[in-house]
């Protein structure tokens, strides 16, 4: 864009009620004027009830799981029963003749997993190599789910076993069976995934990746007054959305329609287009409601590919919804990690060296990094990062709420706590000292530490291990950081009919985060209407392009485009209504269902009446998400990453029974920022969810595989323990309003920041309670007792 596409504007920026000052920004021409603080707005910043709540409490909300089409067939998947093998033959002939069966399909290629750089001998294999137990091989579509299941039993697969390895400790040994016979790459597809290209690979170790390294690490440690070292381990966590991955595929000659439980309808369309070599216009992806995703629901995946093939073969719609076991095993998980972290600091707390040697195990997938926190959260001149992905014969990893960062912060924020303890500095004072970059998240966290300390009663914190008896209580805190991401290609369309009906469209989706509601609020604010006066349409790939519900980027991407489209519509209406009100268009404002002259409520017309009298039939306005006013630090594909991040500080109070090893989280306080909160109630819900999931990760969740067979031993909800009502602590949320002067709404996301600090806060509280560090997640009695016994 040329320089004259921008204009200099003076805009307010800062934390509302704390420190707001005027800043100068280069604003793209045509941007609406900056909004004042939420307190001065009509609809934005208000706790408008979730727009789809009624449909959800009455059972009317239609999920992919609920889609029922005429002639629809039910599909089930055949999965490998061995962890590593060549498939010599597959005989589907008996299954094809089984009662009710309409189609059988054998998968030609696998998505989500790493691929050999040089396929070598594998290029001539008739079928994909089996690399984990539960890997999808084929699927059957039949007139009932039971008929499909029965037919699966009739498929004969002849395996030629290959030695396998499922445990991280074994896989890193040079004598370990290799999961891949040579170096691998993992390219991203429209369904996501992908890992750094061209890294060396030796055995099952792929890496190192060294991004973020700088300075001279040895010198940094020499300059240090204290050095703290630790070896942190985190477990594999499975996403476990309550609605499993599922697709209903309806292949017709003229168009393929895909109903998908997804975090991104556009990725479903695009990945199907890639695989089936169809023009995107011939594919329509629809997702009215998605029953949870948390990072794993992108693209069509292997199951969706099978469903589409089956629909094409059978000439009928095919529904393929995974069962709970498949959901745990084959469609993603949060990688386990081992992080050897060494930090050097001067007596005053300033950091001189951060050295990280880490491993992440994403099963058969690469991309198991430990986040960007170690090298980017706190200033430090000397940083050395070496990360290796470790392959095992286990299901592939996928993004999971705060991917990498949740694991990384668990280690980093404990290490910072440990440095503070060694130096005799209060953990909050320590962060005040070192959290000093020039960025919004840093300023936010400073306020959040102050507010949090006050609200949580930090001054009552005692010395570590103060309780004399076997039951020990303590409090701790940890900081959050997640990039503030804006998605390219975000467009909103507003249609206003002559009767006053307002429709708003965007090809994003609402997976339970409240996207419909914030979309309506922003449009309503511009038009002076109530949120419920705006009919919001999302979850359809035919709508203008919208962002994926992942990376905490929907609200930051969608709302400025929505506001700009609504603003353009409002100015258009004003110019047409001005003659009726005998007032200049630029003096007309939209307020409480009326269009009126500023400061003169008598010169006023009702919204619908004004449209009618102005003879408006239909107005359509579209607007794109413009770039942030300060631009971006970097761009990665469709991700624009701001130099400013999202902060957050969490506090935990725990109770540790040192005789049984049982840990209970009694209380959490989560203090967060997300730019301008469009709907504080919904933001609070997101934060509550992030904390609950964080407690669950810290205390319970742990995917366990049988090393001999690669079978997941707890691939269900009764044995894979997740926080329930009984384990939910008392949680308090406090939200700050941060105006960044970056976009026309200044909204940012919060789903991930709300999750990444929780485990670390609990671990630091554990230290305060017991005087011992807990280096291993989850904090099960066995891990806790081991930590308490450690020297």
């Amino acid at each position: 864009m040329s320089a004259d596409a921008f204009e200099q504007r003076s805009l307010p920026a800062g934390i509302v009620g704390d420190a707001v000052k005027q800043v100068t920004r280069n604003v793209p021409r045509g941007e609406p004027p900056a909004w004042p603080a939420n307190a001065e707005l009509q609809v934005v910043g208000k706790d408008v009830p979730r727009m789809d709540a009624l449909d959800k409490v009455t059972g009317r909300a239609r999920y992919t799981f609920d889609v029922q089409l005429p002639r629809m067939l039910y599909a089930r998947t055949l999965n490998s029963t061995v962890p590593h093998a060549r498939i010599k033959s597959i005989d589907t002939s008996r299954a094809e003749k089984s009662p009710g069966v309409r189609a059988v399909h054998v998968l030609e290629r696998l998505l989500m997993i790493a691929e050999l750089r040089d396929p070598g001998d594998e290029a001539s294999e008739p079928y994909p190599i089996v690399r984990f137990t539960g890997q999808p091989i084929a699927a059957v579509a039949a007139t009932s789910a039971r008929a499909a299941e029965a037919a699966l039993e009739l498929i004969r697969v002849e395996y030629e076993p290959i030695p396998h390895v499922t445990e991280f400790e074994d896989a890193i040994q040079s004598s370990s069976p290799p999961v891949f016979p040579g170096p691998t790459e993992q390219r991203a597809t429209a369904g996501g995934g992908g890992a750094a290209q061209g890294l060396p690979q030796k055995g099952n170790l792929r890496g190192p990746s060294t991004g973020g390294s700088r300075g001279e690490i040895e010198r940094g440690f020499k300059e240090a007054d204290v050095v703290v070292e630790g070896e942190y381990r985190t477990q594999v966590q499975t996403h476990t959305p309550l609605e499993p991955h599922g697709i209903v595929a309806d292949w017709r000659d003229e168009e393929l329609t895909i109903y998908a439980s997804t975090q991104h309808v556009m990725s479903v369309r695009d990945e199907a287009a890639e695989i089936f070599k169809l023009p995107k216009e011939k594919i329509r992806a629809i997702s009215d409601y998605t029953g949870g995703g948390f990072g794993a629901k992108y693209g069509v995946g292997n199951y969706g590919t099978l469903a589409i093939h089956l629909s094409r073969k059978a000439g009928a719609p095919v529904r393929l919804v995974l069962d709970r076991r498949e959901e745990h095993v084959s469609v993603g998980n949060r990688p386990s990690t081992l992080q050897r972290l060494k930090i050097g600091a001067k007596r005053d707390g300033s950091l001189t060296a951060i050295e990280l040697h880490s491993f992440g195990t994403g099963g058969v997938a690469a991309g198991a990094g430990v986040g960007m926190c170690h090298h980017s959260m706190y200033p430090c001149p000397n940083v050395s990062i070496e990360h290796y992905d470790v392959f095992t014969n286990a299901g592939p990893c996928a993004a999971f709420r705060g991917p990498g960062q949740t694991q990384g912060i668990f280690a980093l924020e404990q290490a910072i706590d440990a440095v503070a303890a060694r130096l005799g500095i209060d953990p909050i004072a320590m962060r005040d000292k070192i959290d000093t970059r020039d960025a919004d998240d840093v300023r936010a966290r400073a306020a959040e530490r102050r507010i949090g300390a006050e609200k949580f009663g930090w001054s009552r914190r005692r010395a570590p291990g103060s309780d004399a008896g076997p039951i020990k209580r303590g409090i701790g805190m940890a900081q959050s950081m997640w990039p503030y991401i804006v998605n390219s290609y975000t467009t909103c369309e507003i249609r206003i009919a002559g009767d006053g009906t307002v429709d708003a469209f965007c090809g994003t989706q609402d997976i339970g985060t409240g996207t419909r509601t914030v979309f309506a609020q922003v449009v309503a604010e511009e038009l002076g209407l109530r949120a419920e006066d705006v009919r919001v349409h999302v979850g359809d790939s035919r709508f203008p392009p919208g962002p994926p519900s992942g990376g905490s980027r929907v609200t930051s991407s969608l709302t400025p485009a929505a506001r700009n489209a609504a603003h353009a519509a409002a100015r258009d209406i004003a110019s047409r209504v001005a003659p009726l009100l005998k007032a200049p268009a630029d003096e007309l404002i939209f307020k409480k269902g009326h269009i009126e002259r500023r400061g003169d409520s008598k010169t006023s017309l009702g919204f619908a009446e004004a449209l009618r009298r102005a003879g408006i039939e239909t107005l359509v306005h579209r607007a794109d998400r413009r770039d942030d006013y300060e631009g971006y630090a970097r761009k990665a594909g469709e991700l624009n990453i701001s130099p400013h991040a999202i902060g957050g500080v969490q506090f935990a109070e725990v109770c540790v029974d040192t005789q049984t090893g049982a840990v209970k989280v009694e209380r959490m306080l989560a203090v967060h920022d997300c730019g301008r909160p469009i709907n504080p109630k919904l933001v609070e819900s997101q934060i509550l969810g992030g904390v609950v999931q964080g407690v669950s990760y810290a205390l319970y969740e742990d995917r366990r595989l049988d090393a001999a067979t690669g079978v997941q031993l707890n691939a269900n909800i009764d044995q894979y323990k997740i926080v329930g009502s009984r384990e939910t602590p008392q949680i308090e949320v406090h939200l700050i309003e941060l105006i960044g002067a970056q976009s026309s709404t200044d909204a940012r996301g919060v789903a991930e920041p709300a999750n990444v600090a929780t485990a670390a806060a609990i671990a630091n509280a554990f230290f305060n309670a017991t005087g011992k560090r807990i280096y291993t997640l989850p904090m099960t009695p066995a891990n806790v007792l081991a930590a308490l016994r450690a020297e």
Partner: protein
Amino acid sequence: MSVATQHPPGREQLGTFSPEPQPLSLLINGEVRTALADPATTLVEFLRDALGLTGTKIGCDRGACSACTVWIDGEVAASCMTLALDVRERNITTIEGLSRAGELHPVQQAFIEHDALQCGFCTPGMVMSCAQLVNRNPDCTLDDVKTAISGHLCRCGTYPNIFKATLAAAAASRKGKTK
């Protein structure tokens, strides 16, 4: 051995079933609904696949997540662990039948007001358990609410708002009764 004495009282009148699908009539939300079902059909399959009542969800299909909660004669039950044939002549209430004549149950209203839902997939089951608690015990405590939903899984982590909503609905229902 006498077969008849092993059956619960009244079972003889219900007839016997072959392994093949046959018409099955159940009393659901106050109406007799008839559809084909074989003896292995679970109640939730019958509701969803045979009758199109998709408000009741399946999360685990083994009684561990309670997303499939319905009422059988006013008591909560996991419909994925209940055979459709076994609830003949019982009174089934599903999420679709909870609000009457367009009026929401106080728990449904409170779930909306307190944002006690996110993705919403566990919500119908949660609502059924919380509504049954409030009906049974309008004086319920936080601990009672936790117990009532202790078998439910909400992966989005809406528990704190479910607690608030249910207690608010109980309070509203107490008020309604003293009027």
